[in-house]
């Protein structure tokens, strides 16, 4: 059944568990063999019946055969997903997109907010010999999540998980991108991976790429189809859903729109 599944066709799944990560972020767990095995960086199109369909990175689950979405409540659609209760149904299609090229050795993972989702899955792929630094950025203390999870996933590795908050209410004070600059300055990482607000990704890519360090970012854009038809997710000549979501620092540094513009629902370029 699952082998034959047309991954573009919407499959209905039932939410089995809801975890409150912060007052505005929840993880919704469901059973699905296909989604439980996606590659780090891959996403699904998630249908909240009667409300909307949104692209969501596929979150890992402790239990095999299960997967999750970790959603921050924001506008109408994400709030709709945030409010889905145990036993209720959502539709999923995918997985879509490429995935991170995980280097060996000294790794730096940088995530902000729900941008941590692909980072957590990436952590399940590191080798025991990798030395991993995770930087988590948040506005304030009560927006911090996945710190414990990151530590747990890295139990067998040389690692550090460092949190920074803009207001200093937890961990280091300041923007996580300042921490990035500091770390790439002092360590020649074998790979840097980032997902979060575009400005965070832009600065991280700059910090690493300008020093010749391999860096990849997982981009977000307005997505309608997820399959390379509608064009809504374009960044320069790239289509995020089809060519990405993961792009190399080299490629991004040549893209005219990355870090500067995104398109709104009508397709009009807007500044970040």
């Amino acid at each position: 059944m699952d082998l034959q599944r047309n991954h573009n066709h919407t499959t209905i799944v039932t939410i089995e568990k809801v975890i409150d990560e912060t007052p505005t972020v929840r993880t919704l767990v469901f059973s699905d063999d296909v989604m439980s095995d996606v590659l780090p960086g891959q996403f699904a199109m998630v249908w909240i019946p009667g409300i909307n369909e949104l692209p969501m990175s596929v979150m890992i689950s402790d239990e095999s055969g299960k997967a999750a979405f970790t959603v921050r409540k924001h506008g109408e659609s994400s709030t709709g997903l945030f409010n889905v209760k145990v036993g209720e149904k959502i539709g999923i299609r995918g997985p879509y997109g490429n995935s991170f090229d995980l280097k060996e050795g000294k790794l730096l993972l940088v995530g902000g907010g729900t941008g941590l989702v692909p980072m957590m899955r990436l952590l399940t792929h590191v080798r025991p010999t990798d030395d991993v630094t995770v930087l988590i950025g948040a506005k304030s203390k009560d927006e911090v999540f996945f710190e414990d999870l990151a530590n747990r996933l890295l139990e067998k590795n040389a690692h550090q998980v460092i949190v920074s908050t803009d207001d200093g209410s937890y961990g280091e004070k300041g923007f996580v991108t300042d921490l990035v600059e500091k770390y790439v300055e002092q360590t020649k990482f074998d790979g840097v991976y980032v997902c979060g607000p575009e400005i965070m990704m832009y600065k991280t890519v700059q910090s690493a790429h300008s020093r010749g360090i391999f860096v990849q970012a997982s981009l977000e854009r307005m997505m309608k189809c997820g399959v390379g038809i509608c064009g809504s997710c374009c960044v320069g000549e790239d289509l995020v859903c089809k060519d990405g979501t993961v792009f190399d620092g080299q490629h991004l540094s040549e893209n005219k729109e990355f870090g500067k513009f995104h398109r709104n629902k009508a397709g009009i370029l807007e500044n970040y």
Partner: protein
Amino acid sequence: MEPNIATSIGPIQLDRPVMLASGILGISLDVFNRLYRSGAGAVVTKSLSTEPWEGYPNPTIFSVNGGGWINAVGLSNPGAENFAKMIEPNKDVPIIVSLVGSIPEDFEKMVKEFQNCKVTAYELNLSCPHVAKVGLEVGDDPELVKKIVSTVKNSTNVPVIAKVGLGTTHYLKTVGTAIDSGIDAITAINTVRAMAIDVETQRPILSNKYGGLSGTPIKPIALRCVYEISSKYDIPIIGCGGISTWEDAIEFFLAGASAIQLGSAIGDNWIDVFNEINNGISQYMKKKNYSKIEEMIGLAKKS
């Protein structure tokens, strides 16, 4: 002798006969350049309106299990003015600007916006099956079609194409009216009004409920429309609907199309599909000893 796959659609000359259909990846000049490099003979823009439109909420696209897509994007677009600014730098790509509107003045206004752009042709979308007051609701009204076509023809020297589809008025009537009003070519067809319902949640999947069916399921329907138009009228035709292989393309040429457009095939085979089809057409022409596309246009009508 290497066959030449250049083609003319009435006054429109293209180096390659396979175009990108409207609404597919069609909102960015950078992407247009990339598609042109990938083998598209021209790109048709997303249908543009006088004002920017957000379109419908998601889900806007649904993949049919047996093949094809149903979409109700709702003609989301940045508006003619924004779009014209974006494509102003264009030098290389043959861009066909698709326009959608409710009254002749809408079209007149939009054509003005593009006066500083290199535009290969305008395509009037008279056939979107899922947005009220534009598209098919216009195409289904012969009087309005007449006025819109005449107005656009009077506003520009650039060739004008009418895109038709299956609506509530017989599309052949719309074609006839457009021809009488001076249209230069016909694109046939747009998506076919359709629907999908989720049996678990018991509701239509698309936020707009109704959408337009595209891709392989509509190919036999589109092909008969091209054959019907070319049997009845003497007008250059661009075939569109479900084309995904070079054999499909040839079928449309044999039915009477001078060029073709494709959209959904990109969702299945990505943008390599342009050169795959170009190469297939070339091979076929070599085998059949044709030096020009023209030689095979409409051959199936002779049998």
